[in-house]
């Protein structure tokens, strides 16, 4: 191939103001320096029109990464070339300081609606950098936060900064991250561990996968900083085996980090030693629970154990262990670089920063969304994700996956944070968000989640093992038209008991989808039980197909019926034998005359 491979693209503002500020000399100096370092072929220089930031000229932009340097003088050029272009380390002092890390993403994608209302901290590099190229990450101030911590901060100061940021665990419960770090740091032990929980298992959630696939180094950097802060020498990433690409990228990132001396002994010339190992999950949702996850890493059945003791006291191999999830770790470098004081300006009173949601279900744009805490559900669903397709009506939004609840329309203006969602009867969870329209049956939805949790129950504690199974059975019979009076009360009674008596978070939250749908959509349950009707038409056992007067007697339905439930003479109105019909809906699909009524 004769296409020149350019590693970096430099864009120098060629506007009048910049030229006045000696941008031409800077350009010349750049060319000389590039030549000196033999970079002429791998770095290209482009001139741009006025960027409009004349007071800060000359402006030099380095891509990939959209690093914007301001007031660049000839004397700065050798340093920029040496540090940024050769050693992939941006020159911090020259970066235009208002340019927060998170902003870069929007420099590139900000003109698209989907991205316009977002704010990217955890996912700041996703889609911008080549995740398999550490240089790309380095060029975006990668590992600078680590360097800052190692060179200028004591572990205590790092913890203080994280505490001050107000960051809370993004895995679900929202425990203050800094406090967790402090507890673990306070333990007296020569062996400690840092764990990244990447066992994302909520159906419909794929934040962690995307974050790792898009920017694995951020997670590594966050873990290293955590390791430094609490005094751990080893980090473990526990990731689902179902994510082969994410695993591959992590492996590559770890190897590159080792090559660059970012993992191993004497990291960045300090006496900090740290290494990271990947351990694979094997298809057990409960392993997202921290004590189950620890058991799994230890090579056991992934069953939770009662807490206390908490992992910060007695964790992996019985040693103090700090566990955070992918998104939490990804926030750490930004907090250190942009500062806790900036970070805690984002978000609400109790919940700082942003949250990533995986929006799925009945919306125009499904995908990952990172928004400041305090954004409303309506903004996410309608402004960012484009609302409900096909002119259907919004019915509910389910947050928090199988542990969360279903919120009806009147909660749409809820400003999302840990407290408000809990108050509304759902949870933040790890960030699954499923939008439901009028075509979905809430009882079926609750049943779907219960099927999931009872299948994923580890089987250790009675309420979860036996109770979710019974709830699932009751929900099944309701959707099959066998519901009995009192079933709703049984579901509530079991649900409350399971919630309050189960051993771990899985069981304690498993009834939420049922309890919240009963709370908000009780009438749908009642219709199923009393009237044997499913208004969404989703519960096939409750459907009936009939042939109306539009029938011309073409016979298409009769031919397609698998059970010969349709009788009629050609060119005369046909009839469906209800006692034979299995409600497969095939007649409904083939009828060209709208002659079959589904009710």
């Amino acid at each position, binding site marked *: 191939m004769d296409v020149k491979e350019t590693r970096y693209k430099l864009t120098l503002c060629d506007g009048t103001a910049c030229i006045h500020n000696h941008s031409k000399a800077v350009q010349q100096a750049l060319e000389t320096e590039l030549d000196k370092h033999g970079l002429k072929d791998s770095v290209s220089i482009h001139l741009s029109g006025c960027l409009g930031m004349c007071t800060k000229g000359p402006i030099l932009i380095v891509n990939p990464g959209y690093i914007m340097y301001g007031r660049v003088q000839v004397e700065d050029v050798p340093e920029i070339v040496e540090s940024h272009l050769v050693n992939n380390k941006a020159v911090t002092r020259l970066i235009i300081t208002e340019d927060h890390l998170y902003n870069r993403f929007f420099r590139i994608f900000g003109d698209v609606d989907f991205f316009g209302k977002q704010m990217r901290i955890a996912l700041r590099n996703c889609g911008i950098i080549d995740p398999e190229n550490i240089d790309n990450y380095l060029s975006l101030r990668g590992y600078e936060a680590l360097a800052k911590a190692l060179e200028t901060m004591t572990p205590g100061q790092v913890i203080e900064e994280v505490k001050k940021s107000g960051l809370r665990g993004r895995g679900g419960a929202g425990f203050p991250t800094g406090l967790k770090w402090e507890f673990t740091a306070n333990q007296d032990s020569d062996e400690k561990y840092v764990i990244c929980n990447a066992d994302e298992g909520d159906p*419909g959630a794929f934040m962690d996968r995307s974050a790792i696939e898009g920017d694995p180094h951020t997670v590594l950097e966050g873990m290293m900083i955590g390791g430094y802060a609490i005094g751990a020498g080893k980090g473990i990433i526990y990731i689902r085996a179902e994510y082969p690409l994410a695993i591959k990228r992590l492996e590559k990132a770890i190897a590159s980090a080792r090559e660059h001396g970012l993992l191993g002994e004497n990291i960045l010339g300090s006496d900090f030693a740290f290494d990271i190992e990947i351990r694979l*999950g*094997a298809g057990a949702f409960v392993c997202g629970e921290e004590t189950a996850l620890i058991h799994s890493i230890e090579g056991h059945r992934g069953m939770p154990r009662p807490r206390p003791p908490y992992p910060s006291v007695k964790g992996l191999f019985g040693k103090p262990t700090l566990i955070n999830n992918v998104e939490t770790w990804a926030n750490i470098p930004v907090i250190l670089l942009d500062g806790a004081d900036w970070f805690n300006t984002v978000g609400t009173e109790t919940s700082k920063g942003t949250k990533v949601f995986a929006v799925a279900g009945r919306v125009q744009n499904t995908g990952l969304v990172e928004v400041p805490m305090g954004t409303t559900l309506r903004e996410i669903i309608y402004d960012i994700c484009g609302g409900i397709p096909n002119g259907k009506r919004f019915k509910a939004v389910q947050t928090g996956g199988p542990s969360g609840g279903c919120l009806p329309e009147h909660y749409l203006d809820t400003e999302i944070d840990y407290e408000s969602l809990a108050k509304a009867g759902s949870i933040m969870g790890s960030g699954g968000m499923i939008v*439901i329209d009028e075509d979905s049956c809430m009882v079926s939805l609750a049943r779907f989640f219960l099927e999931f949790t009872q299948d994923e129950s580890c089987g250790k504690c009675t309420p979860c093992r036996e109770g979710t199974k019974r709830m699932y059975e009751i929900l099944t019979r309701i959707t099959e038209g066998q519901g009995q009076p009192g079933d709703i009360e049984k579901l509530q009674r079991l649900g409350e008991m399971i919630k309050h008596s189960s051993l771990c978070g899985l069981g304690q939250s498993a009834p939420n989808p049922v309890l919240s749908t009963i709370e908000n959509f009780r009438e749908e349950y009642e219709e199923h039980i009393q009237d044997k009707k499913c208004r969404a038409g989703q519960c096939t056992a409750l459907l009936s197909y009939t042939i109306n007067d539009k029938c011309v007697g073409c016979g298409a339905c009769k031919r397609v019926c698998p059970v010969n439930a349709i009788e009629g003479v050609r060119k005369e109105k046909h009839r469906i034998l209800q006692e034979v019909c299995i409600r497969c809906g095939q007649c409904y699909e083939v009828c060209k005359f709208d002659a079959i009524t589904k009710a």
Partner: protein
Amino acid sequence: MTELAQDKMTTLREFMAEVSNKDYAESYLIAVLHKTQELFGYVPRQVMDEASEALQIPTAHIWGVATFYHYFNLEPIGRHTISVCMGTACYVKGATQVLDVLKKELGVEVGKTTEDRLFTLQEARCLGACGIAPVIMIDDKIYGELDAKKTVEIINQYRKAAAESRKV
């Protein structure tokens, strides 16, 4: 029981020897099971017996672990594994119908392998491809936006490829 391929066994033994020298060697049990499945497509009992000796873990413990995690197959599986995503998005968009078509087309229930040992049918939790729901994954490859017809077409592609590779 069929004899296990010797070269694969050698690879596995080397892996077990390597991890058995590490700190907390027992904690690598799940890694060994992953390696086993990667090599053989399932976790044969003979391997669990060997792992028991190599890592000094009682077989009951290994059995408990192998049966706990749904990722591990304890029986030989077909050449291709079809995982039908039953995640929420796929469910909402008709995963059940896709599953039904597959059951009918392959003539097997979930968790079973077709008689010709070409396919094993499995249900999967969310595969993280909700944007193109409903999806199935055949081995490592994801197929999205499926309906009954498309699903059958995909199966037939694999059948054709298998038939051709037999000819060669």
